[in-house]
């Protein structure tokens, strides 16, 4: 069996393979220890953290839709202090690179989070969540406006030496415009997509199912939208892309890679198949072997290159 290179370099973060966990679907990397060895991952992307602890939205927070999952968790997280004081210690034994996702209500909060994480050796990179549609004061306002994304990225990039990844929201007219704004602002990688803003109504109660009314749609249902956006953005920017949205198996991952993503993030499907990430890594290896691909990087963007 010839040696196949699956390793990729995302903004200076060396990953042994392209498979990462999508923020918010893998906690802080510790919840799946009973299912597989987390060190097999290309990288772990954590749940988004904020300055203060957040309880998140009231339940119900989750509802299934056809091939999709609608959620309004509301950025429930322990806050940066507890993250640094306690969660980080638990992460010590994880050897895979750890990328911490952050979000703030204001530009200053993003900057403060970036600054504080900058000092933490254990952290390989920072992902700006500018796109969470659930918290009224947070995400959505930044992520839909190219100028704001540009400013926010610039400010955050100035606050840290760590590789900065900007995670884009799909709820925009022109994803390429926002992507370029982020890159111009100093994003060394882009992650896309976050969830599509959606809603479900309980016809017996005659009210929205989610206590928060609207939520973010994720899962296989949104994959075609995500692949399209990666395909558009990859042709317009020079930074590596982390493709996210509805990935279930290695075939889905390959769609993103061929569309132009150097790395992929697995989200909702972790819930259905807790070993999805490692199954995908193995699937990618087999595909490369069968098709005579020596280096997975050869496949990145091959559908348009």
């Amino acid at each position: 069996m010839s040696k196949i290179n699956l390793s990729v370099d995302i903004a200076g973060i060396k990953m042994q393979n392209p498979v990462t966990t999508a923020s918010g679907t893998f906690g802080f990397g510790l919840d799946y220890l009973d299912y597989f060895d987390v060190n097999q991952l290309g990288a772990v992307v954590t749940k988004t953290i904020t300055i203060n602890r957040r309880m998140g939205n009231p339940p119900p927070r989750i509802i299934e839709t056809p091939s999709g999952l609608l959620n309004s968790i509301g950025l429930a997280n322990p806050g940066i202090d507890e993250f640094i004081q306690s969660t980080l210690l638990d992460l010590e034994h994880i050897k895979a690179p750890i990328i911490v996702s952050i979000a703030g209500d204001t530009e200053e909060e993003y900057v403060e989070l970036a600054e504080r994480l900058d000092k933490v050796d254990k952290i390989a990179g920072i992902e700006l969540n500018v796109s969470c549609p659930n918290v009224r004061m947070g995400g959505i306002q930044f992520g839909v406006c190219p100028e704001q994304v540009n400013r926010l990225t610039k400010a955050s990039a100035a606050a840290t030496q760590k590789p900065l990844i900007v995670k884009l929201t799909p709820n925009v007219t022109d994803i390429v415009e926002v992507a370029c704004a982020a890159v111009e602002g100093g994003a060394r990688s882009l992650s896309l997509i976050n969830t599509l803003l959606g809603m479900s109504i309980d016809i017996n109660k005659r009210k929205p199912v989610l206590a928060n009314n609207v939520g973010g749609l994720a899962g296989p249902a949104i994959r075609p939208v995500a692949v399209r956006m990666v395909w558009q953005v990859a042709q317009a920017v020079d930074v590596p892309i982390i493709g996210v949205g509805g990935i279930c198996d290695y075939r889905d991952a390959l769609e993103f890679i061929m569309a132009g993503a150097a790395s992929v993030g697995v989200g909702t499907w972790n819930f259905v198949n807790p070993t999805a990430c490692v199954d995908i890594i193995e699937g990618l290896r087999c595909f490369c072997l069968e098709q005579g691909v020596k280096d997975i990087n050869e496949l990145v963007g091959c559908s348009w290159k």
Partner: protein
Amino acid sequence: MGQAPKCFLGVNGMKANVKVMANFRVKENYYLMELQRPEVAKNARAGQFIHARCKDSKDPLLRRPFSIYSLDSDKGRIKILYEIKGMGTELLSKYKEGDFLDIMAPLGNGFNLEGNISSAILVGGGIGGAPLMALAESLKGRGINRIYFLVGAQSKDKLIPTVDFESLGVNVITATDDGSEGHRGYITDLLPMKLKESSEGCTVFACGPRPMLKAVAQICARKNIPCQLSLEEIISCGVGACQGCVCKVKDNDTETYHRVCLEGPVFDSGEVVWDV
């Protein structure tokens, strides 16, 4: 409540394709499925649940959670009792002996049997009675013989089958909203009287619809009787990763959200916040 032991089955051990040993309708919409899974049969506790992938397709998307109904560590088998509600349970009912089912198990914390329990009153509403069977087995195993099962439902045909409880020597008392079997009214109507009969060391365990649990909690609180409740929420990951399944609890004096799949499904009744 105590958390499930981490990693006790080692890496990969908690997800498995397990063999269906039996799967049949026991009554009306209630089905019983028996699975071969020695690791779980040996280690799981009453109140924990399995998380089953009912179908290898993307609709329905999520797994479905089912409480362990019975644990047979000798044969290495577990049982679940389930009610057909929608697509997931419908698909589950199609499994045949010899098929394999993809499950994650055991999940959740389970009932806490560490206190000084001399007798137990189990209160089950509808399919909520399912985990109480495993609990009854467990209590018996610890030599606790005074067990009452107060079981309620809308009507006779919606009462879960109680023959397994009876064979175990559990005292079964029924109530139906329409009076078609047992007491006419709520099963919680009968709880105060039962509690009066009971001595020191009696603990109440309940699972069922939220209004029933609230009533049980209030009755027990008034009499200062320890009470554990098993709650339901839509479960997606089942392992604590997504924060989707929370319920509001009191933690010291502050209110916070706990995950039903990890810190639950069993909660001390005093913890639960009953807003709305």
